[in-house]
């Protein structure tokens, strides 16, 4: 009997050790330097707030921390869309001026592998920019660093919140070096292909209501006109 207890206690400790190794994996983490930083193409920067009440509309399954906005917006509660979020937001340029409108769909990815420190999200953007026309952006994002550095510390904190200065690139694909794929829809860049990177800059998060001061940034390498 005591051997069985010893084995079980060992197994429990083994599971705990594994979880700690997973959480404190030193090899995990997204790059903080954009692969587009060395691009010779012109870069278009689009920023947006990740706080739901700052958006035009935000919806999810209605059971998450981030509450849909406005309050009476339809929620995505049906089984096939329950793990999906939709955001409609004004995009601003690097000077903070309105520069476009973006619709973002994000769904939890079945390729998520916690053992690789990957919490993956398949997301697509539908963007209208008066300067460039319309774009479709397809990317896979890894939110592990976001959960690891912000969400978990906020939940463990006595004040149910996190404050600090945090920046990470969330794009990890589908292109090489973790670059997102862009396709022009209408306008000068109709049917052209381009690359993009999305990142998050955070300074406050509430474990109760979600992002409190957090900005998303989408950088698109604009193809040269022939």
């Amino acid at each position, binding site marked *: 009997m005591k051997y069985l207890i010893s084995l079980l206690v060992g197994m429990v400790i083994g599971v705990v050790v594994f979880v700690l190794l997973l959480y404190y994996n030193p090899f995990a983490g997204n790059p903080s330097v954009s692969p587009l930083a060395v691009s010779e193409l012109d870069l278009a920067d689009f920023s947006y707030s990740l706080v739901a009440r700052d958006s035009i509309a935000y919806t999810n399954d209605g059971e998450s921390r981030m509450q849909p906005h406005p309050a009476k917006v339809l929620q995505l509660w049906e089984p096939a*869309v329950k793990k999906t979020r939709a955001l409609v937001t004004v995009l601003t340029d690097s000077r903070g001026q309105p520069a476009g409108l973006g619709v973002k769909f994000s769904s939890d990815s079945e390729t998520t592998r916690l053992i690789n420190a990957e919490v993956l999200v398949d997301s697509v953007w539908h963007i209208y920019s008066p300067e460039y026309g319309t774009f479709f952006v397809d990317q896979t994002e890894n939110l592990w660093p976001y959960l690891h550095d912000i969400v978990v510390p906020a939940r463990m904190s006595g004040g149910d919140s996190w404050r600090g200065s945090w920046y990470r690139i969330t794009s990890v694909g589908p292109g090489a070096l973790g670059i997102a794929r862009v396709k022009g829809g209408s306008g000068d860049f109709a049917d052209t292909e381009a690359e993009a990177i999305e990142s998050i800059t955070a300074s406050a998060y509430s474990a109760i209501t979600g992002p409190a001061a957090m900005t998303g940034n989408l950088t698109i390498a604009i193809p040269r006109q022939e």
Partner: protein
Amino acid sequence: MSGAPCAGANLDSQEQDLLKTFYLGIVLGIAAAAALIYVYPVVDQHREPSLISVLPNGGNSESFYIRLPGDRIMAGVAGSTESTPPALEWPEHDFLANMQTELFKVRNEKGVVIGAASRMSGTSEQHGSFVEWVVHLPARGSMFVTMAANPSPDGYREGRLRAGTREFLTLNGAMVERFVNEVDDSDSDDMGQIELVTAFVGLAEELK
């Protein structure tokens, strides 16, 4: 007195066995947790069967439906007095003056919600007129379709698949959009529905 050392030796041996069992437990615990986390899917998207019909060219055709107004999540139109959803504050920027953005839930032929979609339409001096769809099906992928600016005399609007992800990544083809007034269910509040019919073909079929 002569039995004492022997009892001590037995105890040490037992303790060592217990310790070995404990260490074995730790290794088993780590291995079991790793195996569980590797094998068990953390995310398992709900799937509805794809209701696809095969076309003569080897491609496939599929229909998607959006019931109005029930499936409209958001409608953003400059200067509109009625907003969807209620309390929506549509920004009054100049560049949004001639455009409309809508968000919908998307259903399959059986009427089951399988995804969401955005439809952008507008006119600008610089870029001309455009009508575009992004249809996002979480379990399958997304498609980006640009439509003809003007509908046909029959009320259809034809479009082309510009880009796709996952299941739609390697496909080419067309999509037709039309508004259908008839509603089968007379008790329903629906005003009608938008029908999106896709006809896509894979690269392999295209080469044949």
